[in-house]
């Protein structure tokens, strides 16, 4: 069995505690307008041309986005940075895309990680059957759970899918005891409105679970526009500005009543 991944990022320091390796699995059921990794959406290998400078010239290379990898190959890549995980209480994060789209592989991968005493995290959109969660819970120390919008209509408009499965899943997951960090992208005008963030805060408050230990607000940034170009995809958010530091702090305050540590990702 092989997984389709599009990247393995080492020294990932924003995807869970400590120094981590993040494995990005390719394919996602969501098509968020603000997607930071558009190459993650399509569940097939894509080919694009990339320009690289050679002196004053450009060297054009054909780049394959996505590659198949066996569990043994992946484990050997993960093992390379074990010493850093140990020194920093870090570990491995599976992200995407939606990593649970490849649940058979993912289950094997987190199981193998636990067998070798590695801390595991799964970064998920939550848009999968809950039975998938049940398969990985025994081997997963931390879920990074993304929530975008509480309003179902808007959620569908911005991400392409309903939010009911997502919201149900987090409620169920919160009861099973695995640690959860909630991650909320902060995209001005889209989901980062006072109304939505307050609704999100109330939603989390209603879950009222000790297992939710952190909330991260992820400020939208424009770094990925060249990626859209390379993929011949349209960047639909060209007119959105990145939120200011002050804006982020105001939004952070909305979550203060929850008594859950709320961070702005750097």
């Amino acid at each position, binding site marked *: 069995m092989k997984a389709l991944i599009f990247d393995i990022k080492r*020294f990932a320091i924003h995807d869970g505690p400590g120094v981590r390796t993040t494995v990005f699995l390719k394919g996602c059921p969501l098509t968020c307008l603000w997607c930071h990794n558009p190459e993650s959406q399509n569940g097939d290998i894509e080919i694009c041309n990339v320009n690289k400078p*050679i002196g004053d010239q450009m*060297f054009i*290379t054909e780049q394959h986005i996505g590659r198949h990898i066996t569990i043994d190959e992946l484990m050997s890549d993960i093992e390379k*940075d074990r010493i850093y995980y140990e020194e*920093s209480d*870090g570990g491995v994060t599976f992200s995407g895309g939606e990593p649970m789209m490849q649940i058979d592989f993912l289950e094997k991968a987190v199981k193998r990680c636990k067998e070798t005493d590695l801390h595991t995290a799964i970064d998920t959109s939550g848009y999968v059957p809950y039975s998938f969660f049940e398969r990985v819970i025994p081997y997963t120390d931390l879920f990074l759970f993304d929530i975008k919008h509480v309003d179902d209509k808007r959620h569908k408009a911005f991400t392409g899918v309903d939010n009911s499965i997502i919201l149900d899943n987090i409620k169920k997951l919160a009861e099973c005891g695995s640690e959860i960090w909630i991650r909320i992208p902060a995209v001005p005008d889209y989901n980062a409105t006072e109304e939505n963030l307050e609704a999100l805060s109330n939603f989390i408050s209603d879950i009222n679970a000790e297992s939710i230990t952190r909330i991260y607000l992820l400020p939208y*940034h424009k770094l990925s526009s060249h990626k859209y170009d390379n993929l011949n995809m349209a960047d639909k958010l060209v007119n959105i500005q990145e939120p200011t530091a002050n804006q982020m702090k105001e939004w952070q305050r909305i979550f203060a009543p929850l008594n859950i540590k709320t961070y702005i990702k750097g």
Partner: protein
Amino acid sequence: MNERIKYLREISLNAKEHISTERAELITEFYKSSRALEVSVPVRRALSFRYLLERKKICINSSELIVGERGPAPKATPTYPEVSLHSIKDLEILNSREKVAFKVDKKSLDTYREDIIPYWHGKSNRDKIMDALSDEWKNAYNAGVFTEFQEQRAPGHTVAGSKIFNKGLSDLIADIDNEINNLDFINDMRAYDKREELKAMRISAEAMVMYANRHADELLKLAAFEDSDARKDELINMASICRNVPEKRPDSFHEALQHYWFFHLGVVTELNPWDSFNPGRLDQNLYRYYRHDIDNGIITEDQAKELLMSFWIKFNNHPAPPKMGVTALESNTYTDFALINVGGVKPDGSDASNELTYLILDVIEEMRLLQPSSMVQVSKKSPDRLIKRALKIVRTGFGQPSMFNTDAIIQQMIRQGKDVIDARNGGASGCVETGAFGTEAYWLTGYFNLVKVLEITLNNGFDKRTNKQIGLRTGILDDFIGFDDFLNAFNSQIEHFVQIKLIGNNIIERIISENIPAPFLSLIVDDCIKNGSDYNRGGAKYNTSYVQGVGLGSVTDNLTAIKYAVFDTKTISFTQLKEATDNNFEGYDKLRGRLIYDTPKYGNDDEYADKQATDVFEMFFNAVDSKPTARGGKFRINLLPTTCHVYFGSVVGAMPDGRLSGEPLSEGISPVQGADKYGPTGVLNSAAKLDHVRTGGTLLNQKFSPSFFNDPDVYNKLTAIVRSYFRMDGHHIQFNVVDTDTLRDAQKNPEKYKNLIVRVAGYSDYFNDLGEDLQNEIINRTAHDMC
């Protein structure tokens, strides 16, 4: 920082580097005298030292607390014509060159023209060295295969151990007399030589006591004319300090600093050793005095800090003696490489950090000076607090303090056969060089251009730049059957050129020990007194000579490109590849793109590429390590470049890794600039595959953008990075925290960035003082960022 320190710091920063001919005039006067001819060489050197100290202008700067300058004023830089003689043209270039200039006034030029040059022409140590070296050596040197450290400066890497902080010169004189009295003229055929060397050490010790007393006299004279009562008291107190030290062992923290400073002045006045001189483990050597003075209410913590800051300024007043030609290119900086060590372990192996360690780190952060440079020694027993404190200073972006692995340093020294206690008392000096402080004479002999040797191998032993057959005829490219066959050819060339270098070194070592013994330095380093033998003659307990390999990342990527393109994927023939490099890739853009972007590279934890790094390491190590030196020591390797990777790049044509002709080589054991794609752990894992324990130091720099530090948890994560690298026996790591855009802007608008300091290699320097090629090289290094 109080007003006094602010004032002294400004004076030091604003003083302009200039040449003082005072020392050259005095040494010439002495050598011309009949007295110089009547005595043995060691005694002659001691008498010349005394002659200097009797007549040198005493410089006491307003407001200062530690006294004594190498020249007659801050940044006044003496010359050492007995070591190497500057020509009028050299001095004119020094005066006018754009970077690292030393002002030379007309009077100095006249003095050189009329007195110094006529006497020393053909007589300097450099002349003797050049006369004695073979054409083979000179051809390789001119081609840029290696450099020679002792060509313009005396042997360096001299670091004080604890001895001089616990003994006065009168104690050392007693030790000398004891050795002289016990000489055995019946059984010891060297007894007479030993007596001459010991006599020379004694004369030097007495001369330094006299020199300190001249400072005391001058301080009292100033006190008599001083209007301010407070300063008058200070001057009188400083005079009594100079009466007590360095003759007697220090009684206080202030005395200990002044005591060391006189030893420092002695070393850098006697000769111009590479890497000035260094108080070594400062927080260890001073701790007893600090504790005593604080506990007894003699000084406050603020006063201790003020004294340390005054001490820092003294170092910054002394730029490196001016270098010329290739020697300037290999180390093109004012920095004289005094490297303060803090942290590490005690002689019993326990953690050595103490309150003074942290006070010194405060001083480093506030002073923000190039000299002295600073480092922390991190052992597995060191608290994380020490690493985090150091990282917070690193964050401010001036490349200090660097971080060293005490446990690796100790392992290195034990492998070399040193006693474990001596190893624990050691550290790193200069850039990253391992040494047993106070017991070892470890000389750097020159940089070795690994990439040049590969270029020569590709040309069957021929150097195209100098148009000479300087290497072995190891075969034409089409005849190599497999990659290993080619690698064997490269190995033969490395052995060939290392041998030329080592033969040269042994000739040079003999010339130095015969002509320029260093009796004052011999007082400091054990066991010169006990052995009755000079530091420059092998008198130290341990004697080591290093050859510093340069361009490891570049040579690895070149070999990998050859292996990958020619032998494994067979996408191009060896001759075609050679044709492309011979044409500096003109018309070969596509091939060059493939070589740069689609070929495995060192620095990514990629076994395919890293294998070549460890292969080259073994070749270089085997060619150098354990060969005997002329003064009874052993040759060893280390891997560091100072600024030589730029010079070495300038003499190498286009190469198979896609590098164009003349571009800089990779720096230290860092990857080729921009070749590392997988972040810091990829780089560190590649670098850790080298066996650091079999070196005497390796140099790894990592560039981080300031935004990286926005993460609140960044210090924990970087601490983990440092700990991990050190668990893998990494020797040294340093972080450059700077924005690439800032550097680009600084290049365009230097006037806006007068205070911008960057990490170059094993040291920091003002960005404006760097040559454009070196500036570009630093800009092109990969910056780790987080988004």
